[in-house]
Structure formats: C-alpha cells, structure tokens
C-alpha cells in the first residue's frame, strides 16, 4: 500500500506554495476586496507561466497532463493562500465540463486556451434565491440562442466563456456560450474576491455541450469531480486558519499567561485539528478515486466534500474566536478565511445537499 502523493507531485506542490507565498499574501486578497481589481492578474499570470491551469488537461489539448493528484495538491495551495484568481471556476468547473461532455471540436477550441490561462471559464446554474432544483431553470436555449438570467455566477465578472444549464425543448442541457456580448452586473456576496456576477443572456449565441436533455446528470458528474478539488482548497484554507489561531494563541497574553495555555482554547484548537485531519484523510482517498475513475467516486467525493466543508467552517470560525475582539476587525485577516470558507461551502450546493448525496451514495449494507 502507498496511500501518499508521489515525490514529483509534492515537488510541484512545493513550487506552487513558494510562488504563492512570495506573490500572493493577504495583500493580494485585499487589493481585490478593497480595490478596483476583480482578481489578481499577476498571480493568474504567474500560475499560467508555471502551467498550473493545465495540470490535469491532456497534452493533446495543450495541458501538462500531470494528473488529478497533482491538481489536488495545487488546489490545496490555492486554498491555503486564498488566491483571488478564477482558478476553481475555470478549471474545476468549465474545463471539467468541456472535457467530460464536449465534442472533439469544442475541446480543441477551448481546452488549450483554458489550460494556458488565456481564457477564463465558468459555470452558470443558479437562477433563484434557493438551492437549485431542475424546475427552477427557466433560461432557454432555442435555435442556437440563449435567453434568461443567471443570478449568481462565480467569477462571472471576468469569465470569457461560460457553461450554462439551460432548458431545451422539454429537458435540461448544458450549453457553451462565449461571454462577449452579454449583460453582467457584479453581485455582492460573502466573499467579494470570488468575482460573482449576475449574467443576462438576450439572444446570445451558444452551442450545445454534450447530449441534449442530459444537462442535470452531466452537471452532477462535473460537481462530483469538482467537489474533490474544492475539498482540497477547503483543506488548505482550514490548515492555514488553524495555524493562524495557534500562532496567535502562543503570542497573545492575558491574565499573565499566553492564552494558548488555557484549556478552553487548547481544546477548541484540538478539535479544529481533529476536523482537519479527518478531512485530510478523506481528501486523500477522494483524490485517488478521482485519478482512477473509481466506482467509489460519488461516495468518496461527497465524503471529502462534507468533511472538508466542516473542517474549513470550523477552523475559520474558531480562528476568529481565538483572536477575540481583534478577530472581528476588518484589519485582521481572520474574516478573509471566514468569508472564503462560507462561499466555498455553497459553491457546488450547500452542506445539506452534499450530506444528502453522501447518504444516497452509501452501499446498502454499510
């Protein structure tokens, strides 16, 4: 048994970590949070130069073809550094949907540009103020034209191309639309660095992606795969939030002693560690299932997703608690993790939805 990442994958992870450490501090996040930029173009470019966007894309389509284990470790670093770049939407969602359902021509047209970072992609599903169900989808795709409004599209502000869940004749289909001529408005969310937009299509040209009426089930496959990579981002974020809490608790004194010597806080941080380690082990297994297209993927992905969501939410929440009042200031960085953790919880459907998927994927005799 070798239940670990290869030295090659770890070396790539280390390179990404060093790049982000030097170029993607909290300042990058804040320049998007507080400034005019919608994402960090310099970090995006740097990742492109290292080929990170193309990690799991086949070399026939301009990727590095280093596999999903490597991509999962890249995701962990992006999550740890709260990188304000459209990586998740472009790679885990758009590129995955095109790779999984696209025609040869569509793959050839879009994957090389997504792999190089020249083009940014995303996925648009939600239309109403509730967890989407098929009946909610009223955006239509008829005679090559898209009409309708997607309420909240992650990285919709800067995307060049979008995979849209739309109604065709009597079913739901995925379609692929360039975003050159659409109306998009920024929409405020708990994490303003996720570039969320409301996008309105008016007779916008688009092409079917995959089989007609297959949209909901293809979406669910894309979500299962993306869930593993998002789980690694959540894992990275959870680990940093815990590090931050531990670091502060060692330095901050109250009642004449470091606050990290109080059991009330130590035990809180021990519980954060436990949640983190459970998530980490589940993420490892899900990465294996993803890389090997295991029959177990649906269950492994939901398990990783549930425990990584729990871990990041717990660690980011209690990191604020360990910091006390300072943790609730805009100036301290605790809220950056709290914001990201809560956005990432919802991006593929909320925790309850994933709990439900997990139980549905359980074998009959557990």
């Amino acid at each position, binding site marked *: 048994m*070798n239940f670990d990442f290869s030295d090659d994958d770890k070396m790539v992870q280390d390179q990404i970590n060093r790049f982000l450490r030097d170029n993607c501090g909290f300042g990058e996040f804040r320049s998007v949070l507080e400034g005019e930029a919608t994402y960090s173009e310099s970090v995006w470019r740097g990742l492109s130069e290292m080929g990170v966007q193309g990690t799991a894309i086949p070399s026939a389509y301009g990727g590095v073809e280093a596999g999903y284990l490597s991509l999962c470790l890249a995701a962990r670093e992006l999550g740890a550094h709260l990188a304000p770049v459209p990586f998740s939407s472009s790679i885990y969602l758009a590129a995955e949907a095109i790779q999984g359902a696209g025609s040869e021509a569509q793959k050839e047209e879009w994957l090389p540009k997504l792999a190089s970072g020249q083009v940014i992609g995303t996925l648009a599903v939600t239309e109403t103020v509730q967890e989407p169900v098929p009946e909610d989808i009223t955006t239509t795709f008829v005679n090559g034209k898209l009409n309708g409004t997607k309420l909240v599209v992650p990285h919709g502000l800067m995307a060049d191309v979008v995979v849209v869940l739309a109604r065709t004749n009597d079913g739901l289909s995925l379609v692929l639309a360039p975003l050159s001529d659409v109306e998009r408005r920024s929409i405020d969310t708990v994490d303003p660095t996720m570039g969320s937009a409301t996008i309105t299509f008016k007779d916008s040209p688009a092409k079917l992606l995959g089989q007609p009426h297959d949209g909901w089930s293809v979406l669910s496959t894309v979500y299962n795969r993306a869930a593993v990579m998002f789980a690694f981002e959540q894992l990275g974020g959870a680990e940093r939030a815990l590090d931050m809490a531990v670091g502060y608790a060692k330095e901050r004194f109250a009642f004449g002693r470091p606050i990290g010597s109080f059991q009330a806080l130590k035990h809180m941080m021990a519980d954060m560690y436990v949640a983190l380690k*459970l998530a980490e082990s589940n993420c490892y297994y899900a990465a294996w299932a993803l890389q090997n297209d295991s029959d177990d993927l649906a269950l492994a992905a939901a398990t990783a997703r549930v425990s990584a969501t729990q871990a990041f939410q717990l660690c980011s929440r209690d990191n604020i608690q360990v910091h006390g009042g300072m943790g609730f200031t805009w100036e301290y960085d605790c809220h950056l993790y709290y914001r990201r953790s809560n956005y990432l919880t919802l991006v593929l459907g909320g925790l309850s939805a994933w709990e439900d998927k997990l139980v549905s994927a359980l074998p009959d005799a557990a």
Partner: protein
Amino acid sequence: MEFSDTKEEAAFRVEIRTWIDNNAPDYLFEPLSSSGFGSIQIDGFDPMAEAKQWQKTKAEAGWACLQWPKDYGGRGATPIESVIWNQEEGVYGQLSRMFIIGQGMCAPTMMTFASEDQKQRYLPKLASGEEVWCQLFSEPHGGSDLAGLRTRAEKDGDDWVINGQKIWTSGAQHSDFGILITRTDPEVPKHRGLTMFFLDMKSVGIDIRPIKQANGDSGFNEVYFDNVRIPDAQRLGEVGEGWKVSLTTLMNERLAIGGSITTGFPEIKELVDQLRIASGTAINDPAVRSKLADWYAKSAGLKNTAARAISALSKGETPGPENSIGKLVAGGMMQDIAKFSLDLQGLSGAIVDPEIAAGSARLQAMLMRSPAVRIEGGTDQILRNIISERVLGLPEDMRADKGIPFNKIPSGN
C-alpha cells in the same frame, strides 16, 4: 497512490490466511461477530479458556506477538507484517483482548527495563497466553493526574513493602503478574518520587475486588495492597525514575493499527435502513440523513487515517501524529450514535433485552458502555491536551503543584 499490497506483503497475507483458515476456532465466528461492547459473551463457552487456547495455538505456530524478537516468543516480524496479521485475524482478534494490556503495555516495559534472565523467564509465557499480566497504574487519587498516586513502597532489607490501593485494573482477577507504579519518596515533587516494579499477583496481602460498573458489567477491579512484599530484583528502572518508566508503558497505549475501529456506524445504518418513523423509513428523513452523513464522514476519516498509518509503516516510516485522534473521535461518536438510535425508536428504544430490542440491543449496550470509552486510556480532555501540546505545540497548562513536594500538595481532603 495505490492500495494494493507489495508482492512480499501479498504472499505474507496468503500465508496468514491459509493458516487461519486451517486453525482458527471457526465455531466462535458467529458469537464473536455479534459480541461487542463490554465483555465478550460466548454462550456455552468459557471465554478465558477459549482465548488462552487460541493464543497458545498461535504461539506454537509463530503467530503470537509478531513484532517481538523470536527469543522472547515472537516472530521478529516488521510493523507492516504485524498490521497484515491484525487485518487477517479479524474477528478472532477479539479473543486476544485479555492479553492486550500484558502484551501491548507490560511487555515493552519489561523489554526495556527487566534483566535478560527475567525477559527469558516471563516474555515467552506472556506471548503464548500461558501467563496473563495486568497494569496497576490508576488510583482513586491518580487517574488523569497519574503522578498524583499515593500507593507507598518502603524499603525493608532486600524487599519493598507495598501499601495502598489501585483501581480500574483490567483483568486483575485473571492475572498472574502485574507492573506496579508506587510512591517511594513523598518529600520530593510528585514526578520524582515514583518507582516501578513487577510483581506476582498471587502475593500475600493482595486483595482483588471487582468493580460493578455503571453498565452492570465488571471488567475492572480494585486492587488493595496490605504489606505486600516485592524483592528489589523486581524493580524496573532506578528508584525515583518510575515516571520515566511509565512513559514507556503509556507510549504503547495507542490504537492497535490494522484492527477495526468501533464507531457504531454500521449498527445505525442497519437500523435506519429498516426502521419506520413518523415521516416514513428513517433513512429517507432529512434530519437522519444529515447526521448519518456526518458520522459516515468521520468513520471514513478514521479508516483513511489508519490507511495512511499503514502506508507509512509499509514504507518503513513512522506514522504521523494524526493517529492520536482515533479514540477521541470514535468515543464521542459512539455515544452520539447510540443516543440518536434509541431516540428514533421512542420508548421501545429503552428496551435492553437482546431478544426483543432492534439489532439485538447492541445500540443500547453501546449507549451504556460508551461513557467509559471517553474516559479509559486517556479521557477526551487529556487527549485534547496531548493534541494541543504535543502536536500543535501550545503551552502547558499552569499547574498548581509544580515543584512542590508531594506531601505538601493540596489534595482537597
């Protein structure tokens, strides 16, 4: 990343499987599979006799205490080989429960601190189950604060004379020998006045009384010492070094890697697949599904964490600190699962008669046994201290007894 055995590991597994198929007491498979929380119940069989027989059979074929040197009754096997044995022994491993403390904790202490003659005399019989050992550590005044123990050892010629009381001693009533930590000097700070011994449990002056537990079972004992004499030759480590010796013992009090971790998840899954509640079959209820998902994610997390430890052993590395989370997660989860399972059944959930209750009342037994899981071998709170101090590097708690002679420490009575 891959989950298959290496060629050598696969061959070793086949060898074990073949031997177990030919030698294991298969008439005990069913009762052992449905036996669970608390003492082993095997109708019509004497569990101690069956356990000793299985241990003897294993030892004669070289399958006892695999990692021990051959000279002491082991096999000289590698850690990963030992894990493979645990996986393959499966349900029969439950029979070895009464040897776990002797083989898992007393033996490493003897190997480090006993003389060569003593090791030759005691270890092979401990491996083969011919002699059973217990560990006499906890006291009414020294549980989590083990170094606060009060049992006295006073030198008298070539002997030491022991007076005091131990508690929560598993298997003392079946034991031939035990390792015992005592206070030899009450006038120095508490960690410095301790000394370790091993002794014959049939010595004059020992009185063993079973404790009736909250769940009605009696797996533990109180052990009273009234002028019990131990030869100085049975001292383990130097006088006053008992704390250091005890750390060797306690370091070995860890999850036996490769064995299964009891969480209660399979039991509750089986229940909710069938059980009818107001909204229909329980498994279809959103509140049930939410809890089930949480518990599955935790039990999968423990299983995958154990797989990482096995992987590290397979590569000749030491498993990481994440293995310290096992009992902390499993104990609380077992209690929560049991409580929720009963809750779903209304008043009938209160029935503990295995003939009537759903799932042979295993969940009810779990409810009543689980409080102990959260205490024995390190309470939830001590485990959180260990994780926060040794893994996260947080500062030690301030101690009111630091540097104070033991006999000057406030004791509340």
